[in-house]
């Protein structure tokens, strides 16, 4: 194929380490009401072919972390104050704007929750898909159009040849999300970040879209970061999980281990709040209290006002991310106790 290779940055050889390694990332929003510390030291990594699920409540910083990785953070008011985003061995935060733009799209792409507002309403779907090839690959419009049809067929949009002339609003929610996936896939990136890709969809359509995404990921051996708060979706597709609370990673673990025995009280609370069949007629477990205000994050462990295990030390000392095993970590002073209790309950 006659792609102009010089437009695409070369991968930095066979880089050691994971595909993406986020290290101690801090992001704050400087607003009129004060400084909102949205991301307070995030660490996570993802390998090629691996699916990392990022889980956490609304406002816990999942999307802001993703925006910082992609280089699309709203700035101002958002500022990255500390940390590294190491992708294929390079810290992206030190790259210039132009180089960064090349990485985005070609090497990493993002899928958003709301496809309708992230697609351009005045361009037809074919033009939007084709643009990926004309702009990034320098293809002719005709060749780009053929590629667009191919992509639409890849994501199983029926009658792609005809539908390519239609506009986003003429597609159903599930179809639009497929178009988004097609756009993200267009340049065969190594990493895809999917921010709640199926939250706006119905259950049966959600199943179609997730299956498609998983299939494409396997086929191209991509790294996938899946942001969600659906514990069911996570259990279904993730290899490992990072749980966020108040802008921090509070637990990372392979998916099987965390469901069997969480090592952080917040994770445990989330898992316990899922209604189970044998709990019918009983009260659901509910984490007491409310998520913290990011303008006033409690000192010590941010979870301490809601935590059933909190001790005096939790109100003064912020827990580091303790190593639980080779593959697990927990930001809780009492991770051993939590793990023990979780295992007893399992």
């Amino acid at each position, binding site marked *: 194929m006659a792609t102009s290779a010089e437009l695409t940055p070369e991968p930095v050889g066979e880089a050691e380490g994971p595909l993406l390694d986020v290290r101690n990332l801090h992001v704050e929003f400087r607003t009129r009401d004060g400084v909102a510390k949205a991301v307070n030291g995030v660490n996570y990594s993802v390998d090629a072919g691996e699916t990392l699920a990022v889980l956490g409540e609304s406002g816990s910083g999942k999307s802001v972390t993703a925006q910082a990785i992609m280089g699309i953070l709203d700035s101002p008011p958002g500022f990255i104050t500390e940390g590294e985003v190491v992708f294929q061995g390079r810290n992206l935060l030190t790259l210039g704007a132009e180089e960064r733009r090349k990485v985005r799209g070609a090497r990493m792409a993002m899928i958003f929750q709301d496809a309708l507002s992230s697609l351009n309403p005045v361009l037809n779907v074919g033009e939007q898909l084709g643009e990926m090839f004309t702009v990034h690959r320098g293809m002719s419009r005709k060749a780009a159009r053929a590629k667009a049809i191919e992509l639409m067929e890849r994501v199983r949009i029926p009658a792609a040849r005809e539908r390519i002339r239609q506009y986003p609003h003429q597609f159903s929610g599930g179809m639009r999300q497929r178009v988004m996936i097609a756009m993200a896939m267009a340049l065969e990136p190594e990493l895809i970040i999917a921010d709640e890709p199926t939250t706006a969809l119905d259950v049966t359509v959600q199943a179609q879209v997730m299956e498609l995404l998983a299939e494409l990921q396997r086929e191209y051996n991509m790294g996938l970061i899946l942001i969600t708060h659906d514990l069911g979706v996570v*259990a279904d597709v993730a290899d490992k999980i990072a749980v966020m609370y108040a802008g921090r990673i509070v637990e990372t673990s392979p998916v099987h281990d965390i469901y069997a025995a969480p090592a952080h009280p917040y994770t445990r609370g989330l898992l316990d709040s899922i209604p189970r069949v044998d*709990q019918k007629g009983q009260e659901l477990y509910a984490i007491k209290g409310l998520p913290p205000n990011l303008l006033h994050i409690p000192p010590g462990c941010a979870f301490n006002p809601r935590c059933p295990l909190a001790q005096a030390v939790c109100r003064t000392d912020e827990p580091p991310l303790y190593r639980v095993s080779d593959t697990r970590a927990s930001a809780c002073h009492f991770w051993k106790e939590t793990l023990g209790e979780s295992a007893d309950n399992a």
Partner: protein
Amino acid sequence: MSQPTTREPAAAPATTREPILEVRGLVKHFPLTQGILFKKQIGAVKAVDGVDFDLYPGETLGIVGESGCGKSTVAKLVMNLEEPTAGTIKYKGQDITKLSGRALKAVRRNIQMVFQDPYTSLNPRMTVGDIIGEPFDIHPDVAPKGDRRRRVQELLDVVGLNPEYINRYPHQFSGGQRQRIGIARGLALRPEIIVADEPVSALDVSVQAQVVNLMERLQDEFQLSYMFIAHDLSIVRHISDRVGVMYLGRIVEIGADAAIYEHPTHPYTQALLSAVPVPNPEAREERERIILAGDVPSPANPPSGCRFRTRCWKAQERCAVEEPLLAVPEVFRGTGGPAEHESACHFAEEMENPPGE
């Protein structure tokens, strides 16, 4: 107790009480018009197209189904916020669709609604006290003027909010707290029925459980009947005594919660349940998932015969010409098992591996 010879339909609760609400043949078509000056009707969105169900005192009837299948429209019809195109809604034997004036007002007091979106359903310029007390303005007989403040504070207490918050505005509360305000308002007139349209969908997992627990506690305390609409099937199962599954303006299957979740006989219910991600990674490999092809057809132009046939893997010729009725399928009639509940499918059968197991 009923005689052993007169078997209760499987879908009815064990007690032989009279339903508090009887819905029959409910239809709501929204006209589709063209033209700006001279509106010409060119068709209709068949949002609700022949819905029957009963609601019993003190029970929770869950309603599930995909976006656009008509759940909210059914809720609005029951609330008398929309006028039905056809059908009857009997509250204690009285058809409320025919009522007006004072008689309607009296019935309305007994049926209240809690809305999905705690962010937009509360007027931002009203204090919490005014929002919760507003129903008393419409029904001044329930609480005399001098008594209102106390009644509102009582309601705040009932839903677990600090009564001192009475003068705050909605934006000063979190999503879960706002949903509690909506519930307090719904309770103000001491209704018998609460129609809850996606009351926890906009809330975080940890806060959802708090609101569901609150609703269950209030139901026990005030013997409320709930119509609980949601798309989270595990929450619906937790709270419901019976569950109705809707597809394109119709109820396709209805029965006791265990019957629907463990012994579904309608292909759509089976697909829906199999598609729900289960929060257990160990079950990942064993799951038999039914991935449906295609999208839900437009309610302006539903398929002939069975509305599910364009996506149904069991569809046969008969399905295109003959509409399946919501009734206990012949094969299960008199079996007494959990599969003996109403299901609108010509070829209703249990699955080998029920998705819920």
